[in-house]
């Protein structure tokens, strides 16, 4: 499953929200979670991976989940994106 977001936070994805995303992704043990942006795909369970995407305001980011709890995981991640004011769902 996947959802694409547009980054709206003027600082892009910085350390605090990246921490929240990684902590959330890590909660779902049996589910793989990835972030894809600018032609690069990284595991969402790595803060260095997420930061390495160098996301800035205006970029699009696709969150991908695969596994037994993929729907719950994607929901939880989407909630972090919106709650942290990071991004909006990009149709």
């Amino acid at each position, binding site marked *: 499953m996947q959802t694409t977001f547009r980054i709206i936070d003027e600082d*892009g994805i910085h350390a*605090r929200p990246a921490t929240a995303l990684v902590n959330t992704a890590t909660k779902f043990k049996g589910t793989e979670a990835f972030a894809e942006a600018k032609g690069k795909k990284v595991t969402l369970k790595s803060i260095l991976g997420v930061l390495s995407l*160098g996301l800035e305001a205006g970029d699009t980011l696709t969150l991908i989940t695969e596994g037994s709890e993929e729907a719950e995981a994607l929901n939880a991640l989407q909630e972090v994106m*919106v709650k942290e004011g990071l991004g909006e769902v990009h149709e």
Partner: protein
Amino acid sequence: MNKISGIAASAGIAVARAFILEHPDYTITKTAVTDVDAELAKLNDALDKSRGELQTIKERTLAELGEKKAEIFESHLLILDDPELITPVMDKIREESVNADYALNEVANQFVEMFQNMKSAYLQERAADMRDVTKRVLNHLLGIHYVSPAEISEEVIVIALDLTPSDTAQLNRNFVKGFTTNIGGRTSHSAIMARSLEIPAVVGTKNVMSLVKAGDLVIVDGLSGDVLINPSEAEVAEYTAKQEAYNLQIAEWKKLRDEPTVSADGKHVELAANIGTPNDVTGVIENGGEGVGLYRTEFLYMGRDKLPSEEIQYNAYKTVLENMQGKPVVVRTLDIGGDKELPYLELPKEMNPFLGYRAIRLCLDRQDIFRTQLRALLRASAHGDLRIMFPMIATLGEFRAARDLLLEEKTKLREEGKEVSDSIQLGIMVEIPSTAVLADQFAKEVDFFSIGTNDLIQYTMAADRMNEQVAYLYQPYNPAILRLVKIVIDAAHAEGKWTGMCGEMAGDATAIPLLLGLGLDEFSMSATSILPARSQISKLSAADMKEMAAQALQLGTAEEVAALVQSRVN
């Protein structure tokens, strides 16, 4: 030369002996290891110890500085556990039979380099976090006993090349009176931490480390950005006096933070802050703002390639209202045009942009843009004390047209089942002389006025405030301006309404006595001006100022007005 300057990163003045904080030598040599498992165990042990330290620092920061400042250490903990870091290090040890410190350093350097090459300044600074975490683990791997700033036990000024976030978190306020570094900027971690610890700091001096020896007497002036090395007795006396004055003032301002704004003779006025983004609210609260007097919504529209959606706007407005916890928030609807451009609107270039198609003029024409903002505002109104004001109103007709659009959207939202507050105050900016002159008529229909002095002055004096050759005509104290302000305030009061001011003039120490005397109800200014203004007002008698303002209105020039205030106040 004993005086150098850098970037003033945290306010205050400190005088003390220098403590040179030097980081250990992390020269790493590649060695072949025979017992790979022992090397892996060594790595795990170092990671465990580092984790323990970080937990302690995180908890201590949490207790002393709060959640926000502790978050960085949460990120550091995640880096320690990051498979993208740890797996390659372990692989390297296994596959190349090399020492753990070498493997870690090699892999970590790749990440440091990656961050340094990023476009965003923020992400470039994350290289420091990466180094910080790596050094922590290396200390254990290399058996380095690093004398941390936490072990300082006498009053000092810390001198360093740079301070890492964990260095700064360990600074003991009782002993570390200030610090100064070779590198860093106002937004580096060390600077941010210094401000929350309220330790004076000057960063980015470039060479303080090479000029100062341990034990030298040093003065750090975090107000001006100056650092004095082995100052003369006269200099010490001068700065000690400056320090005492500053500390007294801070103590006084702090006491006023949670106090209402009351003049010496008991008249209450409201001091609010001007903000541009939801992030600014923290500063409003910290500086004791009684509300937001001007939320400039333009920033929501800037730096993007299309208009912000209703949802984005709703979230921003709601965040501000919630974080202000029921205190009033005056939101100004879109004020674009003039000197503020939006490339994606492709507005034609104008000969006289300040007299042209801007603000409410544009919004009434481009109703698609305006209605989206009004809907977002109306929906957000359920989350606090929202007040809406329209900018650049020149005629009553414009106000009525804007109000009608608002009422239409309100009805629509209610029909859609959305919650909208019933008590939204609706006002206008008074920045065009025609509106000021006709304020008595406007006052019957609006709930409040907010005087925008920058524009009111430039339109009244017919002087472009961007044009340096006519800058002398920017005269807030000109009796003509004061008379317009008085007309507006009196008109509002006659209808039982209130008047605020959200231009630079509202926070100006010479203007404040006059405005208090003219009966201004709300002063909205930059957050950092609030406490000084509250302190100033607490020493003024509103009755005396009323009499002084009446005199000022009868003077002929701005200079005479300023001289009158000087002679009466202080």
